[in-house]
């Protein structure tokens, strides 16, 4: 059974084409700037409810997204703005969902990071941690039953979610069914405020793979190239029939749990440790050192992304809010079975 621990990523093995790291970097940058915009909108009181950012986790998240094909299945979690963009979610979807536009995929019925298109393989998370994994299993199971081959599914989680019963049930289920599931755990050291010492007692979360009989991959989640390499190989293993893959990335979230949280509980020593490196800076350094790009390109890309984000926000701020009088106020699709409709 394969259990890999990646050292620093190298050039050459990152992605399928020479341009892949550049594509990935530009998506990370857009995700970072989009998150920054949500933080600003939140401070300005323009967003109802929570704001959850993926700052510091973009390398891992984008690596997931760029490793997948459009026909795969993806269940992102709260810190996956980069992975979503890479998988093909339109940037405006995030803006519409955060601002509650009636034109967004959730039409104001659900907000912030709860968004997606189930039929297109982008599963909209429910809040209950661990609950999306078995749903990914179900999509993969059904596709196999229908004779569709070659696709994989990713479920993203934080290390806190590995303590849920749902995580255990679903990873075991995927292993029993030998499904092409890649379970990506972002071990960012804290689940809200709870440190790893109060969350689990194994030396590494990747050790859990042995107990489930699945393959595992550990990677430094701040290492851009390492994440691209690891995710690409984990996805490839799943796609070529090696069953579920557990990927554990060690990193730190460089923000609060949500924008309401100042993360005062994260000790300075951890922030100053290698775990606290900013993966975006690491990516830039990597691209420069390996001559993918000159430093002058970064500012242009940044400005382009800012223009795109500002345009999306300006557009969505003009869009209609959901109208309570136009709502059907029913949760079922079989209208003939609505309460009060018996005849």
């Amino acid at each position: 059974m394969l259990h890999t621990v990646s050292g620093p990523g190298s050039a050459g093995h990152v992605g399928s084409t020479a341009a892949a790291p550049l594509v990935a970097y530009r998506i990370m940058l857009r995700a970072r700037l989009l998150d920054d915009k949500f933080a600003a909108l939140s401070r300005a009181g323009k967003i109802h409810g929570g704001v959850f950012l993926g700052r510091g986790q973009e390398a891992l998240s984008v690596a997931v997204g760029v490793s997948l094909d459009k026909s795969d299945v993806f269940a992102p979690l709260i810190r996956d703005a980069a992975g979503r963009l890479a998988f093909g979610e339109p940037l405006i979807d995030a803006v519409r969902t955060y601002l509650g536009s009636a034109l967004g995929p959730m039409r104001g019925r659900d907000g912030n990071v709860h968004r997606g298109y189930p039929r297109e393989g982008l599963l909209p998370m429910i809040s209950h941690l661990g609950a999306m994994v078995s749903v990914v299993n179900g999509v993969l199971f059904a596709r196999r039953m229908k004779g569709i081959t070659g696709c994989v599914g990713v479920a993203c989680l934080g290390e806190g979610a590995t303590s849920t019963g749902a995580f255990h049930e679903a990873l075991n289920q995927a292993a029993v069914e030998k499904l092409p599931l890649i379970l990506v755990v972002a071990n960012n050291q804290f689940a809200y405020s709870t440190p790893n010492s109060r969350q689990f007692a194994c030396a590494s979360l990747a050790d859990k793979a042995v107990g489930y009989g699945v393959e595992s991959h550990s990677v430094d989640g701040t290492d851009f190239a390492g994440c691209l390499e690891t995710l690409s190989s984990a996805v490839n293993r799943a796609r070529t029939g090696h069953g579920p893959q557990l990927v554990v990335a060690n990193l730190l979230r460089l923000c609060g749990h949500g924008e309401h949280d100042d993360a005062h509980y994260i000790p300075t020593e951890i922030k100053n440790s290698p775990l606290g490196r900013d993966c975006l800076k690491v990516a830039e350094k990597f691209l420069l050192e390996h001559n993918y790009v000159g430093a002058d390109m970064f500012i242009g890309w940044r400005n382009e992304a800012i223009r795109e984000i500002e345009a999306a926000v300006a557009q969505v701020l003009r869009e209609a809010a959901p109208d309570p009088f136009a709502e059907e106020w029913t949760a079922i699709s079989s209208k003939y079975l609505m309460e009060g409709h018996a005849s």
Partner: protein
Amino acid sequence: MSITYLEAIREAQAHALRDDPRVFIYGQDVGAFGGAFKATKNLAREFPGRVLDSPISEDAMVGLAVGAAIEGLRPIIEMQFADFSTVGFNQIVNQAATLFWRTQVSCPITVRLPFGGTSGSGPFHSQSLEAIYAHYPGLIVLTPATVEDAYSMLLAAVAIDDPVIFCEHKLLYYHLKSEKLPSEALPVGKARIAREGRDLTIVTYSAMVHEALAAAAELATEGWEIEVVDLRSIKPLDTDTVIASVARTGRLLCVGEAWPWGGVTAEVVARVTAEGYGLLDAPPQRLNAKDTPVPYHPNLWAAHRPTSRSVAAAARNLLRT
């Protein structure tokens, strides 16, 4: 030839598997073994690859069903006992029940709950959980009381585009028999007048329909004509049929095997009181199980749940007021 309530459930699943390639069954021991109650007997052999054993993981069983439904399939999940569905509760009420409302993608899954008390089963193999599921928006909750309904409503459940909680009563599995399977049925969501009467209405569902009918027969010997309404479906609840019955009789007794706090009987009383207050000649009454876990010993069990005797006694009291 006669067919039992349990066989009707098996036949309905065979029928669904035969007619619709999108249907599959997933649950503990449902494969070669045929299920703890034999509700899937021989189905794995007749429909290879479509009747599958699951690990003991109720949460993941329902989660998998939701994913399969997103992909256009129509899973039937067998909970070994309704009591264990609480382990899959989150996926039922938060994942399955919210999917359509959030995304406009419907979630056609059927979750079969073998439920209700049988003597000797005790606190964890006897529960009646219909009211808890009915409380959540986004779910349909069915409670067939007859062999015919067990068959036709399970077929209907699989065809419904929303998640259905199918509550099949274990006490009826072997005892309840019918000559043949029905070719037509009342629509889901419509209650049935199981016995006509003009002095008092008993509204009930599932196994308690039979206790109510026995009570009505006993009261008939005393000169009372009791109407028995079988709800068939808890959600949607056919308030119209209930109120029309109360309009005829002026008296309402609601009987349920579930616990007394809240629940279906309370819901029916609330609706009749709000919408048909002027039709009532006496305060509406409820009869439920006692507010304790379901006891193991037959003496205790028989006293815990409503029976034809306690139903008849409650009806007599109400007829005197």
